[in-house]
């Protein structure tokens, strides 16, 4: 058997070509998607469109309410999910000493993470909108998003709690610090980067969510302040995209929204990597 047999060479070339083709298709798809959306949206990108509310009297369309609704709902959901998620992770990692209970809770969290979002929407509608009487509103939407993103926050916080060296905890306990003080002053500050990463992941998911919000947050395009918006129905960008494209046939508006969403997710990704790099540098210093 010769080491550089022709058969082997052919095999190697074929596999290399195949993997190159796969890569080329992937890259081409991504570029096509990005370029297609930009080409389709740029002609309609006007300051008026992104800075006003839609008006029937003037027969104009504006997506500002949708942008604001997106920001409001993300803010409100984060405000609720952070304390709950971080609190749960702290309980599981630092307080609970019943491994079997932990297993059950962790299993529930895993399951929660795997449920399709439209089911959250359905249950959110029945529980928050109807049973709790919140009607179709951004608050109901934010509550639904909170539950959907709990697993993300809990898991990323747990992961980073696990990376805090046990010796930090021992050092603090050895000085007579009580448990909560150890957690507050030593453990949490050392895992703030993991919590921030979790938040960014959650923000990305919330921004992209539409199915659950169709049920719970509604379709209105009214520009409101934060608290009024919470009590009234409102479309986020993804929902508005669906409404403009599918129900009103306004594809140019849909593409502008798509472009805005792409910018936002790009911004989130850049923020995440900048933060990660900064935290990394601070740790090495």
């Amino acid at each position, binding site marked *: 058997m010769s080491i550089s047999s022709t058969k082997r060479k052919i095999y190697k070339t074929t596999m290399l070509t195949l993997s190159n083709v796969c890569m080329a298709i992937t890259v081409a798809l991504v570029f096509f998607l990005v370029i297609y959306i930009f080409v389709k949206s740029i002609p309609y990108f006007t300051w008026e469109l992104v800075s006003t509310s839609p008006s029937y009297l003037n027969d104009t369309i504006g997506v500002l309410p949708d942008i604001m609704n997106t920001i409001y709902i993300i803010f409100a959901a984060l405000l609720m999910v952070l304390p709950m998620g971080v609190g749960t992770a702290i309980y599981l990692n630092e307080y609970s000493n019943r491994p079997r209970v932990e297993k059950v809770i962790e299993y529930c969290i895993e399951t929660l993470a795997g449920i399709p979002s439209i089911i959250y929407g359905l249950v959110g509608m029945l529980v928050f909108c109807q049973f709790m009487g919140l009607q179709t509103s951004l608050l109901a939407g934010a509550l639904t998003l909170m539950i959907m993103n709990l697993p993300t926050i809990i898991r990323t916080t747990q992961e980073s709690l696990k990376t805090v060296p046990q010796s930090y905890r*021992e050092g603090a306990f050895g000085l*007579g*610090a009580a448990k909560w003080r150890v957690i507050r002053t030593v453990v949490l500050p050392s895992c703030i980067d993991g919590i921030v990463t979790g938040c960014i992941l959650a923000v990305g998911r919330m921004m992209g969510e539409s199915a659950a919000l169709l049920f719970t947050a509604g379709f209105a395009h009214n520009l409101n302040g934060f608290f009024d918006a919470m009590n009234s129905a409102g479309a986020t960008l993804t929902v508005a995209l669906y409404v403009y494209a599918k129900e009103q046939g306004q594809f140019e508006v849909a593409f502008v929204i798509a472009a805005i969403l792409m910018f936002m997710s790009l911004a989130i990704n850049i923020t995440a990597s900048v933060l990660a790099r900064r935290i990394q540098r601070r740790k090495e210093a």
Partner: protein
Amino acid sequence: MPTSENASAADTSANVFTVRKFNLWYGDHHALHNINMDIKEHSITALIGPSGCGKSTFIRNLNRMNDLIPGVKLEGSIKYNNEELVNSDIDVSKLRKEVGMVFQKPNPFPMSVYDNIAYGPRTHGVRNHAKLDALVSGSLKAAAIYEEVKDRMNSSALGLSGGQQQRLCIARALAVQPHVLLMDEPTSALDPISTGKIEELAMQLKEKYTIVIVTHNMQQALRISDYTAFFLLGDLIEFGPTEKIFSNPEDKRTEDYITGRFG
């Protein structure tokens, strides 16, 4: 145990810790068997023995650090002055304020030098800036590291060398003004020069504090300690004045260990 009674008879100074028939289990594993020991005030007591003999496990009962480990079961009695530590409902925070600890690996918090030292006093309610400043510089001086860090009080303690970090940890433990200092192999991660500094420091500190030190370095025990306890497989084989243990041990196993036949 006759040897421990001999040790207490030889010295009339007060017992800080009185250990009687102390047993410890990790789950089903019986890790410490029937330990009896008197730890004297203003002395250095060295705990020696091969790895896994229970010396670190033992020292961690003196400030109840084993509370942190699930599945630990205790029996017998350890009295700190006159207070029972075993399975008792004491204020652990107060105990650890009086019985400070320095760990095997230097473990400064990821904070500034100043905040590391001030952590303990702040934990126990010292808020006054002047008082904190005095405690911080006093502790750093007592731990012989003040000169090296006085110009970098606000930079991260993680930037110090290993030996400096360990002396910082000693200063951190001193800042809560303890009576006893437990040192769990404090020099095992350090180079010889840093080790020398820590040993010298320990000998100075015994004027004011009672020191219990775990070490697997027999020369270290011989150099700095007044009393030595030899542990083997969870038993306290021999306990007494250091010069006696090293020159005229009663037990064959102690002799074998200190002459380097095993361990």
